[in-house]
């Protein structure tokens, strides 16, 4: 009896396994064979379909791809660059990340070693060497070029890459000392990064690596902003008076206002739009230009606007976005700073109208 039951169970399990095997195999194959598709889906918007770069690094440039160990690329994909434009793709599976790396490897082999042994150097001496040879591009404090990321708006299109922030926690976590040394020694032909193998001695390069690595120890996690995403205020005035007050206050703060719109305008005919939901749109073009130079996608959250609406009870309220909090979605510390000024203006305008 037992023997029969065992055989039946075994047969059943074998059948189930055989059914599952193709599923498993196709899943793995899916990841492996679809590196190109995954790259296109997740990376091409910034790095371009062919890897020639854009908002992001020109990964297909031979001197770039050769200097990046697989481990570096994988960590970069998963962790991103805190405070920079590169997001973390931590939802991707290990197979999918491997597939993307496999696709990128079609552009060039890894030439840097996988050695993760820390390089011993003198960080103090390295700082002096860094200031002399690297700071003009990578910033006095390893903060990278501060002009922003987008090709179109922030830099000459003939420049294929912006000098990265070497003090970025994500970068330092992903890059081995061997990779840093390789990049400094060999440079990146086709980018503004020169090779220093003939300019600096090996101990000097080791010192610079140690100086960059020392920044890793000083990293602090940025505070998490838990402020409300939208800000709502009661108006002491009636609806029309509030609209007028907001419009005139905005002009006084050097913003240019656009014609008002109803929230529903354009979604329905002009007679059916709710006229008690008015959007006052405004823009300071200097601030907009600065923000676009830092993050070309900023248009997704701009222009500035304050919405005035009347509730069914006749209360008049103003609602607007907490632009600082909203801007944090871009994971860009430079942008956060730029948005701070806009945020202050918002607060002052709203205070002036409602107090």
């Amino acid at each position: 009896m037992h023997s029969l039951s065992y055989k039946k169970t075994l047969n059943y399990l074998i059948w189930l396994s055989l059914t599952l095997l193709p599923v498993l195999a196709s899943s793995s194959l899916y990841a492996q064979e679809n590196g190109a598709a995954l790259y296109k889906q997740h990376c091409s918007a910034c790095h371009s379909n062919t890897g020639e770069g854009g908002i992001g690094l020109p990964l297909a440039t031979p001197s770039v791809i050769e200097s990046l160990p697989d481990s570096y690329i994988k960590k970069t994909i998963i962790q991103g660059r805190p405070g920079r434009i590169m997001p973390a793709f931590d939802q991707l599976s290990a197979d999918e990340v491997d597939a993307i790396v496999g696709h990128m490897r079609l552009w060039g082999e890894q030439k840097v070693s996988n050695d993760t042994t820390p390089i011993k150097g003198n960080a103090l001496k390295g700082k002096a060497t860094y200031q002399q040879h690297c700071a003009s591009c990578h910033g006095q404090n390893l903060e990278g070029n501060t002009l922003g990321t987008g090709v179109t708006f922030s830099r000459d299109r003939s420049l294929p890459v912006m000098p990265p922030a070497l003090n970025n926690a994500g970068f330092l976590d992903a890059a081995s000392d061997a990779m840093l040394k390789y990049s400094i020694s060999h440079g990146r032909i086709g980018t503004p990064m020169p090779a220093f193998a003939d300019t600096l001695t090996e101990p000097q390069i080791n010192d610079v690596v140690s100086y960059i690595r020392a920044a890793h120890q000083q990293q602090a996690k940025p505070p998490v902003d838990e402020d409300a995403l939208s800000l709502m205020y009661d108006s002491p005035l009636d609806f029309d008076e509030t609209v007028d007050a907001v419009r005139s206050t905005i002009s006084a703060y050097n913003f240019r206002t656009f014609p008002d719109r109803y929230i529903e305008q354009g979604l329905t005919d002009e007679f059916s739009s709710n006229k008690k939901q008015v959007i006052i749109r405004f823009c300071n073009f200097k601030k907009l230009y600065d923000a676009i130079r830092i993050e070309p996608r900023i248009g997704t959250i701009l222009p500035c606007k304050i919405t005035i609406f009347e509730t069914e009870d006749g209360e008049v309220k103003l609602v607007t976005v907490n632009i600082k909090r909203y801007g944090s979605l871009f994971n860009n510390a430079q942008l956060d700073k730029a948005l701070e000024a806009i945020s202050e203006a918002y607060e002052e305008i709203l205070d002036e109208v409602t107090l």
Partner: protein
Amino acid sequence: MTIAMNKLLITFLYTLATAICVVSNTAVATEDILTARTSSDFESTLEKSKLVLEEHNFTVAHVQRCDGGLRQMGYHTDNYKIIFFGRLEEVREVTRAHPELMPFLPLKLAVFAEKDETLLSIVNPTSILAMMPALEKELQPLFSKWEKELRQVLAEFQ
């Protein structure tokens, strides 16, 4: 015999669990800013964007010319426009129940040129909702639906 069967069962269940994990790991990344790149030029991409949105039953409310304003003010800029779009019933329902969401509606699609290519970007609606935890439970179905639809819209450009 029973011990052998148990062992077999445990091994099988482990394999099954692993299989489920592997299969389910083909999830789509939840990027905060959904972006697509197309090798098409700006003007045709802008026109196609409006058509694709309409094919997904969104209504295009208006197009804001960011580049026009910047140029007027003396700034050098490439082509940059923002399409405002939505569905009346959804916008009306959400703003009536949750006026704090008014600043995010209608939805916005930024279309901008980069060299000869064009990029399209939009804030992931579920990322907005994730920053408003009190509304998450109630609005998750709608915002997830929007995310899915917007990914489909962008996929038509890649």
